[in-house]
């Protein structure tokens, strides 16, 4: 049997089945869950590679489990935006590797949380993968729940003092947003009688009858996904949750899980642009403004944080602002920039959280004041951190640059130069923070002996960090590749708008 057509099903199933078996293999030995999770992610990554290769060759394609063609069955649909599975697998794989030593430092893990931790990590990745590749609205919701539930638990699993509280806050907002999405799916189903995204789009095209349900559904979907993506003012759950989680989890949450909201929004846009039911100018304007506020506010709060992880969490809000703004601009450049930033920000943020995690692992401190002088003690980690830092600011030739450039261009293309300014000043604010960080890490005398005597991170942490850091550079230099890759997808998304 040739596996070629089945990768799409396998990529969804592998992590889930792997997760289901993780508690089983945990019976064998304390270390097996790590290796098991690692090999599961390896298989998944292989599947992701095959899928990305296939879309390079053929363009978007579908798979129908059960053989019931859409709209009667569930369709898995792989388009350019789904290629984000590549980065999900990569970061997931590295996060597992990173965790192998990291979890030793968490007291709670000495008492049997380890297998559950890996199970949740796999479930989280599996949920995200399912979410990105499904072509069915309700299936989207189901996978969203898988990844959300595991995400809530992963926040709490580290045992930080406020972890459970942060997780609960995250859960409450996440659950409400999920409900909004489900409600909206109900509305769309009520007026179209179908759940398949493409079919919903087709049936809404030239829809006769009251449009109010579709409009309400649109509103709820946007609010729901914006909450998942932590767009201002629905971001309140994010900083605590991402700061309280164990660092590899923070990398996954900040780099990937919030992006799920954005991908959800892209799917929503696909429906509503495609059906041409509404003129979305006002919504887009709202999104642009919210994006702009997120950028500035996130960056502003980030600047004043002493806690490194908290500051990274705020910078995530800022970066989500970029993406949302790019989407809202609804110009080719803007949307391309936003879509590529989904990929690149995942790499960058994971780099940063890994590096910070390694530093915390070695020193036990997490504020700038405490970590003075750590750059000299842990040179390689600090170099990776610096690379991530300049990437997130968007300095060429790193990964963060081209996307922001494109989003800024998109702002000018949409004749909204003001937002170009906002974008650049947001980057500037973040830049100030990183200068503070570099200053503290390299040019101040250590205040703690642990910091001064720290050794560079162990290989299992250093390797993921450095791999990602070098990818930040490579993706910057080869920035054209993702841009051209995503372009047909964006063109298809925006085609109904004309031009």
């Amino acid at each position, binding site marked *: 049997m040739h596996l070629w057509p089945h990768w799409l099903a396998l990529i969804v199933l592998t992590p889930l089945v792997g997760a289901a078996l993780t508690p089983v293999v945990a019976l064998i030995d304390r270390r097996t869950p790590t290796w098991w999770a690692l090999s599961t992610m390896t298989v998944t990554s292989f599947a992701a590679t095959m899928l990305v290769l296939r879309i390079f060759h053929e363009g978007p394609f579908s798979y129908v489990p059960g053989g019931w063609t859409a709209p009667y069955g569930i369709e898995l649909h792989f388009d350019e935006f789904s290629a984000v599975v590549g980065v999900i697998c990569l970061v997931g794989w590295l996060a597992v590797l990173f965790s192998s030593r990291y979890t030793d430092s968490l007291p709670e893990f000495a008492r049997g949380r380890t297998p559950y931790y890996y199970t949740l990590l796999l479930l989280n990745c599996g949920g995200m993968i399912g979410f990105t590749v499904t072509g069915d609205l309700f299936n989207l919701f*189901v996978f969203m729940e898988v990844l959300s539930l595991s995400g809530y638990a992963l926040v709490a699993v580290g045992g930080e*003092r406020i972890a459970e509280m942060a997780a*609960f806050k995250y859960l409450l907002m996440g*659950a*409400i947003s999920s409900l909004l999405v489900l409600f909206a799916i109900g509305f769309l*189903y009520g007026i179209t009688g179908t759940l398949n995204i493409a079919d919903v789009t087709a049936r809404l095209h030239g829809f006769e009858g009251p449009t109010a349900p579709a409009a309400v559904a649109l509103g709820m979907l946007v609010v729901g996904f914006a909450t998942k993506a932590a767009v201002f003012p629905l971001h309140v759950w994010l900083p605590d949750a991402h700061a309280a989680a164990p660092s590899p989890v923070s990398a996954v949450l900040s780099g990937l899980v919030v992006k799920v909201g954005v991908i959800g929004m892209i799917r929503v846009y696909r429906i509503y642009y495609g059906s041409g039911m509404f003129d979305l100018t006002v919504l887009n304007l709202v999104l642009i403004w919210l994006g702009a506020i997120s950028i500035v506010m996130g960056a502003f709060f980030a600047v004043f944080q002493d806690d490194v992880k908290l500051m990274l969490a705020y910078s995530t809000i800022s970066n989500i602002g970029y993406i949302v703004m790019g989407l809202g601009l609804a110009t080719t450049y803007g949307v391309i920039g936003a879509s590529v930033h989904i990929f690149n920000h995942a790499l960058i943020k994971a780099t940063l959280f890994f590096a910070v995690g390694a530093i915390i692992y070695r020193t036990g401190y997490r504020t700038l004041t405490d970590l003075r002088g750590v750059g000299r003690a842990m040179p390689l980690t600090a170099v990776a951190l610096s690379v991530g830092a300049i990437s997130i600011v968007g300095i060429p030739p790193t990964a963060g640059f081209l996307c922001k450039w494109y989003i800024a261009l998109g702002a000018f293309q949409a004749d909204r130069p003001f937002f170009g300014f906002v974008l650049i000043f947001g980057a500037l604010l973040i830049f100030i923070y990183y200068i503070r960080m570099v200053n503290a890490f390299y040019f101040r005398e250590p205040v703690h002996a642990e910091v001064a005597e720290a050794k560079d991170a162990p290989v299992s942490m250093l390797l993921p960090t450095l791999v990602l850091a070098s990818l930040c550079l490579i993706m910057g230099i080869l920035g054209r590749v993702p841009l051209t890759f995503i372009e047909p997808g964006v063109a298809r998304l925006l085609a109904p708008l004309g031009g």
Partner: protein
Amino acid sequence: MLTALWHNIDYVASVVLFCIGLYVVIAKNNLIKKFLGLNIMETAVFAFIIALGVIEDGQPPIMTGDAHGPFASPLPQTLVLTGIVVAVSTTALALTLIIRVYRRFGTIEADELRELE
């Protein structure tokens, strides 16, 4: 408009329930209470989706020999089945977190927790 609402009385009821739930989630201070509110919201959405599949003088979509139509749509029912499972999962995790929070801080009132943080 009002007639439309009257004919769709199931829908209206679920909207009302949804809003009551929303009110509880936002207004109440106690985390368990908040989550009771969320459960009300969830059931409201389920009621809404079930109502979508209802058909006039309908039968359950079970095709045993003597059954005759019209049949209610089976699809919304499957959605709600899944939804209920999701809801109970969320509830279980939320209550677990609440228990842990109580162990750590000795309270589950949101404002007191905010001060303790």
